[in-house]
């Protein structure tokens, strides 16, 4: 476990680069992490997914899997891979200040 300063804020982060305290997250952090993940311009669709993941994690206590995201938001798998290429669920969890999604589906 270590700390990192992102967008002017010091946050707790694990070895895999996932924030461990979701309450330390800010939208500025999201934008900064997204840039590092190869997404320099977050649009409204990205934010819709990020906000869903944040609220879903608040109620369930864990990051949603990709299937959970597509089922709940109505976005297709294709759209999710287009929005967050190469591992959508992991990428959006990182950007949203949440832990790594668990589960095989």
């Amino acid at each position, binding site marked *: 476990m270590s700390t990192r300063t992102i967008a002017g804020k010091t946050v707790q982060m694990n070895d895999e680069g996932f924030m461990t305290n979701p309450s330390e997250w800010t939208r500025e952090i999201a934008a900064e992490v997204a840039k590092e993940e190869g997404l320099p311009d977050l649009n409204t669709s990205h934010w819709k997914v990020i906000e869903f993941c944040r609220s879903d994690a608040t109620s369930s206590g864990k990051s949603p899997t*990709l*299937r959970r995201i597509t089922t709940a938001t109505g976005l*297709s*798998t*294709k759209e999710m*891979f287009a929005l967050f*290429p*190469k*591992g*959508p*669920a*992991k990428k959006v969890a990182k950007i949203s200040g949440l832990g790594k*999604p668990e589960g*095989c*589906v």
Partner: protein
Amino acid sequence: MAEETRKVAFICSKGDLDMAYPALVMGWAALGNGIDVTIFFTFWGMDMIRKTRQDHLQIAPVGNTAMKLSMMGVKGMDNAGIPNLLGALPGMTAFATKLMKDKMHALGVPPVGEYLQMMVDGGAQLYACKLSVDMMGLKKEDFVDGVIDIVTASDFMDMTEGAQIIFI
């Protein structure tokens, strides 16, 4: 310079319901980790991509020494099997299949067809084996839309250069 993307390729050779899932689960996990996925369907594995077959795969209790009564909900029967003679009774394969499908459904695991479509949407590339296709007298139209082409074993070797290959 961007690092090279990891690649994994599955060869699916079985048409049993339980043997369909390893490639689906691992392939989906691979896509979720940003890994390129190619799947080559050969022999009975082609049932996973045949329009008329993919959602009718079954699991048979006959000759399956690992399938125990405890899986059928009988408590404390971890080592009591289903006698082959019983497994051979009409309806037993359908029963075992329904049981497995129900358990998968309860865990939120999609059926084979839907799962494969998710993978295609996530970028997985599906191919059918030419020799098996010729042997079984099939055509490209017999396969679901996600199947890109019918290719030879040699083509498969070419397209999976540098990939980790998993045979199922």
